[in-house]
Each structure stands twice: as C-alpha cells, then as structure tokens.
C-alpha cells in the first residue's frame, strides 16, 4: 500500500492528510515533535489569556485520527533521505515513504540583535513558545514587544490580560504601516492607546541588555532610549522552518522551493504551508511566501488532489485575510496597498469614535473595486470575492453594501452613513453619473 508521510501537524499538514483520506485509502502518517495532536495555532493566545484550555484548541477529538486511519507519531524527524525514500526519527525509528509532504511551518524572526538569546527574550509561534512564555512572564510587571505585526499585537494583548504593562516598540511610523494605509494604521494605534499600552513608533531595537541575574533587564533603541523591562517579545514576523530539509537533496532558498503544484525538485516530495517558497513563474515577479492560516489550509486542499493523482495547480484566488486588533475586528478582501498605487483611487469612511472604518480601493479608469479593508463591521467573504472577481464598480459596491453585511442581528447599520460620505467624496460618481463617466 502506498504510504504518505507528512512532516508537521499544523493546518497545512493536517488539511493535506484529511483531504487525502477523503479520496484515497493510502496509508497516512503525520509526524510532529510539537504536539501529539493537531491544535489550532491561532488559539494559542486564548490559552494564555484563560479563554480556553489547550484541549479546547484541538479541532478534532483524539479518537478522530484512529477512526480516519491517520497515524500520528510524536517525534522529531532528524534526517530525510530522498534517495532511499526514508526518514530517521530522533527515537531511532526509520520510516519509509512513497510520498512525502514537508509542512514544518515557521520560526520567529531574529535579526541578530545583541542579547536576542537572553533568558526572558522570545518569540511566539509554537506550543513550546507558549509554555516558555508562561515561565518567562511569571510575576513580571513590564514587558517590551518588538515588532508591530499581527503576532506582536496578540502578544501585547496576552500580556496585558495578566496585568503586565506593555511597551510596544514599532519600527514603522505607525502600527503595521508596511501593510495598512496610514488612516487604518492610525485607527489601530488609537485602539492600542485606549487599552493603555505604551506605543513607541519609528524606533528600532538596538540591543537587549542583561541584568545581574543574566536575564533581560532592558532594551536600547536606535535613538538612544533605554527601556527597563523583565521580558522582551520578539515579533518582527516569521521565516520558513527548513531545518529538517537542510541536509537533504530538497532544494531550498529562504524556504522550501516549490512550483505552483507545491512540488519540490524531488519527485514525490511536496511542501505546503508557511515553510514554502513558491517560485515565480514570470520575469518580473518575486518568489512568494504565504504564511497565513488560510493559505496553509488552501495549500493542503490543493496538494491532496495532486497526491491522489489529480495534479492541481495552486491558485490562491481573490486574496482575503482577517485579524482582531484588541477589540476591533479587521477583514480584507482583494488587494489594498499601504501606499496609493498609480491608477487607483481610494474611498475611506471612518465613524466618529474611530472604532469602525471602511476603505474601498478602486481602479480610476473603470471604477472596478480592487480591494477593501474593513474595521469593526463584518462583511461577507463570498459576496466581496464575487464583486471583486466580476469587477463591480465602487458605486455598485457602496450602494449594495447592505447585501454584504454580516453583523449580528439588531446591530447598528452604517450603510447610509457610508453612502452619504461616498457621495460627499465622489460626487462625480453618484448613480446617474457613473454610466456617463464609463461611457
């Protein structure tokens, strides 16, 4: 019987396993040295904050795996031998495979700062990181978080829930400003300040200082500030975890190099999730890294088809993502650049207390919607995906916004306010004029 071995039991590896099982009876083994059972990485923060227990983060009960004949091995893969189709595990076991999927996820970035490996300094990616965080933050009062991204703000919220004062050190002018346009970043900055974090913008970490006990005691920034602290969270993003393939014949760059079918250079060896580097197919493109929960899941779905004999190209479709910044939910559909791109215009609505905002980016020639950022209002994924795919005009989208609303019943509607603001900003685009303009 064919044997599929998957290294890594995160969302990419597990989605592959589950979808292969739906189509095939082949033997499936998933190996992980992080946890025995699949858990939801996105919920790590809720464990620390006391919203959930670890067992609540497991999307499937433990009997699920045996019932679906997916074998789980809790061990670390030391070596991949692609010539003999075999793996060596740290428990001495050797496993042979017919097909192999490497889905090993990410490591937290560290940029060679002095003191980055001191006790009390860490990133947050794995269950082990969470356990370490428990240890590192016992009875502390003040923490510094370096890196204004999605993990950074989650870590800040986590520490804050334990009454630890947080200083947030951000390289950009505003929070997540390398992704979000200014006004959107500002809205999140206000939310951060409302929650009582210190926010230090435009500052780079220079070094991390140790105290007499050898643990972190302060950080120094590039503009000379020294901030005392008992913990440093390093959250300037992640990079592919390719440790396991380093000594193998599997080709790597920053990540594990794959084509659009998620195939590596070695036949029958595939890779999916955070650890891949998808090779560019066109001249002016760059290799892609996709390090989201959603892309991991999509990789797994597509790869399962290929493994089961229906070779399928990975096309990620209309981009989408979501996050929650403290109490503000965020969704994005299509493409919204942090700085205005040529040929595009932006409509922006914000409510007066800066808890909600809608940004619609559209093509200035045919007015078709390119992307949307929304804060504090829930929008329907399918509707926006369809609108962007079928190139609906900004006018159409704003006038039909209610169709896309996904807020709970009885919630206040902002559609009229948004429409008024749109007519205010773009009088030339109101209903009767747009056909003329297009003609």
């Amino acid at each position: 019987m064919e044997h599929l071995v998957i290294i890594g039991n995160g969302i990419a590896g597990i989605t592959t396993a589950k979808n292969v099982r739906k189509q095939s009876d082949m033997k499936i083994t998933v190996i992980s040295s992080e946890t025995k059972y699949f858990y939801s990485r996105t919920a790590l923060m809720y464990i620390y904050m006391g919203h959930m227990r670890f067992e609540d983060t497991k999307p499937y009960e433990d009997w699920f795996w045996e019932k679906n004949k997916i074998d789980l091995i809790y061990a670390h893969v030391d070596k991949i031998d692609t010539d003999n189709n075999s793996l060596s595990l740290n428990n001495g076991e050797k496993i042979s495979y017919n097909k192999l999927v490497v889905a090993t996820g990410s490591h937290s970035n560290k940029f060679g700062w002095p003191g980055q490996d001191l006790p009390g300094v860490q990133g947050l990616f794995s269950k082990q990181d969470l356990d370490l965080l428990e240890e590192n933050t016992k009875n502390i009062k003040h923490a510094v978080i370096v890196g204004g991204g999605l993990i950074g703000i989650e870590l800040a919220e986590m520490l804050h829930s334990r009454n630890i004062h947080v200083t947030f050190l951000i390289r950009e002018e505003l929070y997540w400003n390398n992704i979000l346009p200014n006004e959107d970043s500002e809205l999140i900055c206000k939310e951060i300040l409302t929650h009582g974090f210190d926010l230090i913008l435009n500052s780079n970490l220079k070094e991390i200082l140790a105290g007499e006990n050898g643990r972190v005691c302060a950080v120094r920034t590039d503009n000379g500030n020294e901030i005392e602290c008992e913990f440093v969270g390093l959250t300037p993003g992640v990079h592919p975890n390719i440790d396991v393939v380093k000594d193998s014949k599997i080709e790597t760059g920053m990540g594990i190099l794959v084509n659009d079918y998620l195939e590596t250079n070695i036949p029958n060896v595939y890779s999916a999730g955070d650890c891949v580097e998808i090779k560019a197919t066109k001249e002016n493109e760059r290799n892609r890294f996709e390090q989201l929960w959603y892309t991991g899941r999509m990789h797994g779905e597509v790869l399962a088809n290929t493994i089961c004999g229906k070779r399928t190209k990975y096309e990620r479709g209309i981009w989408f993502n979501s996050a929650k910044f403290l109490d503000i939910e965020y969704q994005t559909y299509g493409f919204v650049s942090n700085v205005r791109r040529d040929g595009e215009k932006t409509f922006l609505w914000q409510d007066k207390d800066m808890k909600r905002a809608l940004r619609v980016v559209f093509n200035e020639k045919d007015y078709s919607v390119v992307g949307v950022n929304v804060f504090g209002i829930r929008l329907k994924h399918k509707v926006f995906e369809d609108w962007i795919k079928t190139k609906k005009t900004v006018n159409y989208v704003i006038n039909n916004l209610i169709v896309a609303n996904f807020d709970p019943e009885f919630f206040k509607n902002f559609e009229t306010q948004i429409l008024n603001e749109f007519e205010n900003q773009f009088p030339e685009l109101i209903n009767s004029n747009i056909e003329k303009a297009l003609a």
Partner: protein
Amino acid sequence: MEPLSIDNLKIYNPNKKLETIKKIGLTILGFGVLMLLVSLTGVSSTAPILFLILSFGFSILGALTYCVPQYKEAPPGIKNNKIFFNSFTSKGTIAWITGIIITGFYVLLYWFPNLLENWIRLLDPISHNLRGIKADQWFLYGTFYTLAVLVMGLKIIIKYRHNRYQIIRTLSVMFFQFGFAYLIPAILHKLNQPEYYFSYFWPLKYQYLFPDTIKGLFNSGGIGYFMVFWGAIMTFIATPILTYFFGKRWYCSWVCGCGGLAETAGDPFRHLSDKSLKAWKIERWMIHSVLIFIVVTTALLWINSAMKGAMLGDVSLTFSKVYGFLIGSVFSGIVGVGFYPIMGNRVWCRFGCPMAATLGIIQRFKSRFRITTNGSQCISCGNCSTYCEMGIDVRSYAQRGENIVRASCVGCGICSAVCPRGVLKLENGKPEGRFNLVK
C-alpha cells in the same frame, strides 16, 4: 502627520482602584449573606424590613459592586480573560462550594422548607403587598430566582454593551421572568384567581394539558377558560409557528425562565458544557425519552379521563408526584441549577427539557433559523465551541463553511459574539439552502 497623543484618550488599565472596588463589593456581598444567615435564626422577626434590606439589599448591592465596574471600566468587547484560571468559573474549590450551597438550598426548599421559615417570613411584607397573603417557600424561591435573573441580567447588559443582540435578548428574559413568572402569578393570587404562568407551556409545564388541571381551571370561570385556551394555543399553534420563523430561540433564550436564569446567573459557567460526540449522543437519547414519556403519559391520562378513570384510576396525582420529584425537582432544580458551576448552565435544557426537545425537532426539520458561516474566514480557534452552552461543536461546522442547523441550538448568539473573525451569524432566512452540507 501629527504624532499620536495619548492625552485625549481614555486609558484603560486594570488597576488597583478596580481591585479595591471588587474587594468592597465582596465585603458588602459577604455582609448581605451573613445577614441572610443571621436571619435564619429568627432575630429578623424583630425588624423584618430592616433585615430585608440588610440581607437581600446588601447582597444585591454587593454583587453589583463586585461585577459591574470591572466590565464598565474596561473598553467594550469580549471579556473572557482568566475564565479558566478562576476557581469559581473553572470547577475549582469555590465552584464546588457554590454548587454544594445551591444544591443544599434546593434540598431545603423541596424537603425541609421549615428550616427556611425565617427567610420566608422576611419576605412577608413583599408577599402581602403583591399577593395579599403571607409568603411561602415558593414565593421565597421565586423571589431569589427573579432577583438572580434581574441582577445578573444587568451584568450581562454591561458585559455585552457592544452587542445589541445580547442587550435586547437579555432585556427580554428579564422582562418575562419579572412580569410573566413573578408579578402576574402574584397578582392572580391577590385577585383570588388560579396561579398560572403565562410563559410556561406543555410539555415543560406538563400539568397545563392534564385533564385534571384543565377541569380545575374550567371550574374557576372566565379567566380559567382563557388560561386553558392560552395554554393550548401556545403549545399547538404559536410554538410551531414561532419556531418556524425564528427557531427555538424565541422561547429558550428570549422567554423561558430556565433559559433566563441560564443566560444571566449561569453565564459564568457556559464554557463548562461537554462538547464531545458522546455527550451529544447521550443528549439525544435523554431529552427525547423525557419528551416521549410526557406525551405518552398525557395521552394515557386523557384516555383514562375519557373512560372515566376505568383504566388508570386516580393515577394522575401519582404521576405528578413521581415526575415532579425525579424530573421537576432533582433534574431541573438540583442538577439543572445546583450543578451550574460543575456541569455548565444548560444541563437541564440540553438533556432534560421536553419543551426544548419539541422546539428542537421543529427547528431541525422545519424552520427558517440557522447560523450561517462566513466563507473561508474561520481560523478554527474554537472560541465558538468553547462558549457554546449547549455543547455544540460549532467550530466543526464553521471551519468547513457549513451552516449550523442543530436541534439543540438555543440561539443565544454567544458563538457569534466571541468569534474573533466575524464568521458566525444567527439568521432567519429562506428554507432553501439552509443545509449547505460540505463533503
């Protein structure tokens, strides 16, 4: 760009002041409870009004002082921090003590009401005013119950002040408990009319369609006829129609007193429900068995009545006693409420309530109600499943993008509220496409 300033923002910081307020609240509550205990000795008869204020008044004031400011001080948003660390809300020692105290109260109430005599006397002034007679143990129970719904309801409204569905729904259960289950029965008493709860129907209030009850009501003239009419209409006409349009929630989380207590006083324990597949299986067997039992018994009683007692004799009274003891007292009272801190707040509603069973069957097979999911935005974090008081594994549907159509869902809307990615929405819509099963 202007630098962000924190001067004009209201900063939230969980601070010492809040801890002090909580301690003051606990002290007042402790004093109130102490006075309640003191009242049990009978001293209160010397100054009933004073002791009423000292015991009941201070308990309410203490509870509100303890829980309202902690939510009010914090920015609006989900407040589940430390739920699983707190002894009270995570089956710790305090939870067990609370469970034992509530259970003990039920035991005294049902079987040793004479031990509660001095509490009952404490309520004489209120009972005289409302009902024109002195208080009894059931008036004491009703008062405790209604106070719990009102006081904790107020807490829920502040806790979820960002969520209008929760606010309106909580006001609804408070209204029905205070008006329909407390004031109206009391006023009926004063007017010398039969006691009747207009918010409880067969099969939950099984007696309301028993031949003896109906005969008794007919004997009390006009209003009795109306009560019989109301009971029959609500059970046979209103229930299916309302459930068709709005789902089970119109009753279980908007009107019902059991649901009202679960959603208010029981809210701190909603995450304790068992989410396993096994629990779901047990649930279906138990709840439908109770329903069948009630239906068969009611039918037999009517046949017996038509045969002028030839078949069963005077069995109705015996039945009432046995069912009343096993299901009414032990199950719905002791297990249903006494075990809140151990088994969650909806044990009775989920495993025992025949009304919930009826509504559930209608909701599952013939209703416009469903919880829809938002495309691919689910991150499988599991907040929805964790906080589902009915033990539904909401995540298992959400991560597949499948609508949730389940007999047991009471439509409390908390899954949608705690979802950090805007994935869940309670909706009434066209029956077509209600089941969007994903393979």
